[in-house]
C-alpha cells in the first residue's frame, strides 16, 4: 500500500514536471500563454536595458503578446557588451537574436562596431504604431545618428523623489533645495557617488549643473573654472544636511525612505515608484523635475539587419505590439517610464499627480555626457559628500 502511494506521488511529480517543461515553457518565463501562441513562429527578444523591474514587467506582458499575435517570444535578459560580442561573432551570417532592447550607449557601440539594424521607417506598414513616434526620435538617440535603425521604447527620467506625507511643499529648484536644507537636515538622502549604481553621482552632477557648472566643457577646463570649485564647495555644504552614512546601493536608500530616515533625494523615478508599488517605499512617494534639468535616458528597440527575413516579419509585429497604446500606457502607469509614443492623452490623469507631465519634463532631460567629468565625480565625490 505504502509502495503504491509512493509510486502515485512520483508519477504525479513527474507528470507535473513534464507539463511545466513542455514545449510551451521557456526558461525566461515569457513563453506564450494561449493555445495559439507559437503557432505563427517564434522570435528571440534580447533585453539589455531593463533591470529587475523590467524582467518582471516583460514576464507579465509578453505572454499576452504571444497570445495576441500567435508568436512565441523567447525573452533573454543580458548585458549589452555580451550581446555585442555575440552579434559581432555572427557578422555576415544569420543572427539568433531577432529583436533587441538597448540603451543609447550600447546602440552607439554596436553601430560603431559596424553592426547594422533594419531601417524601421522602411517597414512602416508592418509597424503602424511607428507613426506615433516623434520623427526626430527615429533619426537620433541623444545626438547619436541612428537613421531609423532604432525606435525609442521608453524614456526613463531622474527626478526629485520625496515623501509627500513629510514634505507637502517640495523645493522647485536646486537653489531652493539648498536654501531650505535646514528644514530637512538629516533627512536628505543620497546614494554614495562611488557605488555601483550611478544614482549618487548623477545627483551630484545635476546639483552642479543647477549651481551653474557647464558640463559641456572638457574636464581640465571645468576643473579650472570658478563655477566648478564653487559648485563643489556648495555641495559639500549641502551634504552636511544629508542623512549619513549615505546609502551604498538603491535598495538601502529605499530602506532609508521606508523607515523614515530619508524624506527626499534625487534618483530614478521609474525604479523608485515601481519599488514603491512593490511596498518597498512609503505609498506617499512622489516625483518632480527641476527646471535646471535632471538626468534623462531612454531604451531603444532594434531589429538586426542579418536576422532571417521570416523572423524579421515576426519581430516587426512584436515591435508594433510593444509600441501599441495598450502596452505603452501600462508602461507609463506601472513602470513609471515615459511612453515612447506621443499618446499621453491616453494616460489616466491620476498618473500626473505622482509624476510631472511629459511636456513639463521633455526639455529638462540631460543625457549622460562628459564621461571624464562624470568619472571624476565617481572617484572623488565621497570627498564632498561626507565620506
Amino acid at each position, binding site marked *: 500500500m505504502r509502495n503504491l502511494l509512493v509510486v502515485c506521488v512520483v508519477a504525479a511529480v513527474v507528470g507535473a514536471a513534464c507539463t511545466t517543461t513542455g514545449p510551451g515553457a521557456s526558461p525566461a518565463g515569457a513563453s506564450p500563454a494561449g493555445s495559439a501562441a507559437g503557432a505563427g513562429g517564434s522570435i528571440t527578444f534580447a533585453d539589455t536595458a531593463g533591470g529587475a523591474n523590467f524582467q518582471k514587467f516583460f514576464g507579465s506582458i509578453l505572454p499576452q503578446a504571444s497570445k495576441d499575435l500567435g508568436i512565441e517570444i523567447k525573452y533573454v535578459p543580458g548585458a549589452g557588451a555580451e550581446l555585442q560580442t555575440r552579434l559581432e561573432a555572427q557578422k555576415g551570417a544569420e543572427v539568433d537574436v531577432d529583436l533587441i532592447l538597448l540603451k543609447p550607449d550600447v546602440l552607439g557601440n554596436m553601430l560603431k562596431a559596424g553592426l547594422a539594424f533594419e531601417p524601421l521607417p522602411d517597414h512602416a506598414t508592418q509597424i503602424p504604431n511607428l507613426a506615433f513616434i516623434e520623427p526626430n526620435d527615429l533619426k537620433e538617440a541623444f545626438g547619436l545618428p541612428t537613421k531609423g535603425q532604432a525606435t525609442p521604447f521608453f524614456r526613463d527620467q531622474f527626478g526629485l523623489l520625496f515623501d509627500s506625507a513629510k514634505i507637502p511643499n517640495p523645493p522647485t529648484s536646486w537653489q531652493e533645495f539648498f536654501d531650505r536644507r535646514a528644514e530637512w537636515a538629516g533627512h536628505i538622502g543620497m546614494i554614495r557617488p562611488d557605488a555601483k549604481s550611478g544614482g549618487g553621482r548623477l545627483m551630484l552632477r545635476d546639483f552642479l549643473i543647477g549651481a551653474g557648472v557647464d558640463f559641456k566643457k572638457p574636464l581640465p577646463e571645468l576643473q579650472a573654472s570658478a563655477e566648478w570649485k564653487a559648485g563643489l564647495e556648495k555641495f559639500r555644504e549641502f551634504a552636511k544636511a544629508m542623512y549619513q552614512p549615505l546609502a*551604498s*546601493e538603491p535598495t*538601502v536608500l529605499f*530602506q532609508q525612505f521606508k*523607515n523614515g*530616515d530619508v524624506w527626499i533625494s534625487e534618483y530614478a523615478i521609474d525604479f523608485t515608484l515601481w519599488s514603491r508599488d512593490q511596498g518597498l517605499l512609503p505609498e506617499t512617494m512622489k516625483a518632480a523635475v527641476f527646471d535646471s534639468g535632471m538626468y534623462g535616458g531612454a531604451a531603444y528597440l532594434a531589429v538586426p539587419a542579418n536576422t532571417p527575413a521570416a523572423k524579421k516579419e515576426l519581430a516587426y509585429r512584436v515591435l508594433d505590439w510593444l509600441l501599441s497604446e495598450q502596452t505603452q500606457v501600462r508602461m507609463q502607469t506601472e513602470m513609471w517610464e515615459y511612453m515612447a509614443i506621443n499618446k499621453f492623452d491616453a494616460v489616466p490623469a491620476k498618473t500626473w499627480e505622482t509624476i510631472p507631465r511629459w511636456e513639463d519634463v521633455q526639455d529638462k532631460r540631460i543625457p549622460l555626457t562628459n564621461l571624464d567629468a562624470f568619472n571624476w565625480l565617481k572617484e572623488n565625490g565621497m570627498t564632498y559628500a561626507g565620506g
Partner: protein
Amino acid sequence: MAVQFLRRLRSGGPGTSSARHPGGRAVTAALLVPAIAFLALFFFYPILITFGTSITPANGTGVTLEEYLTILSSPKDWGVIALTLGLAVGTTVISVLLAVPLALILRRRIRGHRALRLLVLAPLMILALVSALGLLILWDRNGWLNLLFSRLLPFSDGPLQIDYTIPGLLIFYTWLYSPFTILTTLSAVEGIDPNVEEAARVSGAAPWRVFRSVTLPLAWPGIRAGSVLTFLLAFGAFSVPLIAGGNHRPLPVLIYTEAAVFQNFERGSALAMVMAVVALAAIALYTRFSSKPVRGSAG
C-alpha cells in the same frame, strides 16, 4: 588490472614505502592529479593573474610595485585592513563564546533541542545579501528587534544605533558566520565520551575543573576548526558590509569598489593580494598558537 590496482591501494596504508611497492608512487601521483589540476586551474592560476595585474602598470608594460607601496603608505588603507581584521577576530571570539555553552546545552538533548539545532542552521539557508537587508530592517530605528532591545536595556533612552555601526556589523557577522563554529563545536562536544568526564567528577573534580581540564581540551579541535572557518568567512564578508556597513567598508568592499566601480583593476588586484596575505598570516598565527593543548589538558 583493476584487481591489481585495488590490491595496491589496500596495501598502501600509512607508512608504506614506494620502494616496497614500486607502483605506489605512480598511483599516488595519479590520485593527486585531479586535485592538483583543479587547484592549479581554479585557484593558483587566478591568483597568478591577480598578482600579475597588481604589478602591471596602467599602460600594460613593465613591472611596478607602485600599488603595493601606495597601500602600505596609506593610513586609510591600513585602517581598512585593521577594520577587516578586527571584524573577523571579533566575530570569531563572539562565535566561540556562543558556541561552547550552546553545544554543552544541546548535547544534553533538552526539550526542543532539535528545533534549536535547526535554528542554528537558519543563517546558512538564507542568501547573505537577503540576510543583510533583513537584518538592516530588523535593527533600524523602527525595527522590532531594535524596539524590543531599546525597551529591555535599562540604559537605553531611545532606539539603538545598530545599523551602519561596528557593533551592528559584529551582530550581523555573528548571525551569519557563527553557525560554522557552533556546528563543529557541537560535533566535537557530542563526540566526547561522557565516561571520561564522569571519571573526572568521580575523582573529585569540580564542574569548572571538569570543563577546563577535560571537556574543553577534548572539544578544542572542533572549536578551532569552526573558528577558522568563521574567521575566514568574516574576513571575506562582502554583502553584509556593503549593505549594512555604511562608512565602515572592509577590504572586500574596497576591492569591489576599486575593481567594479572605478575599473582600477591594478589597485583592486593589489588589495586582493594584500587581503590574501593578511588572511594567511592571521590563520598561520592562529593555528600555531591554538595548536598547543589548552591549559590543564589531559593530552
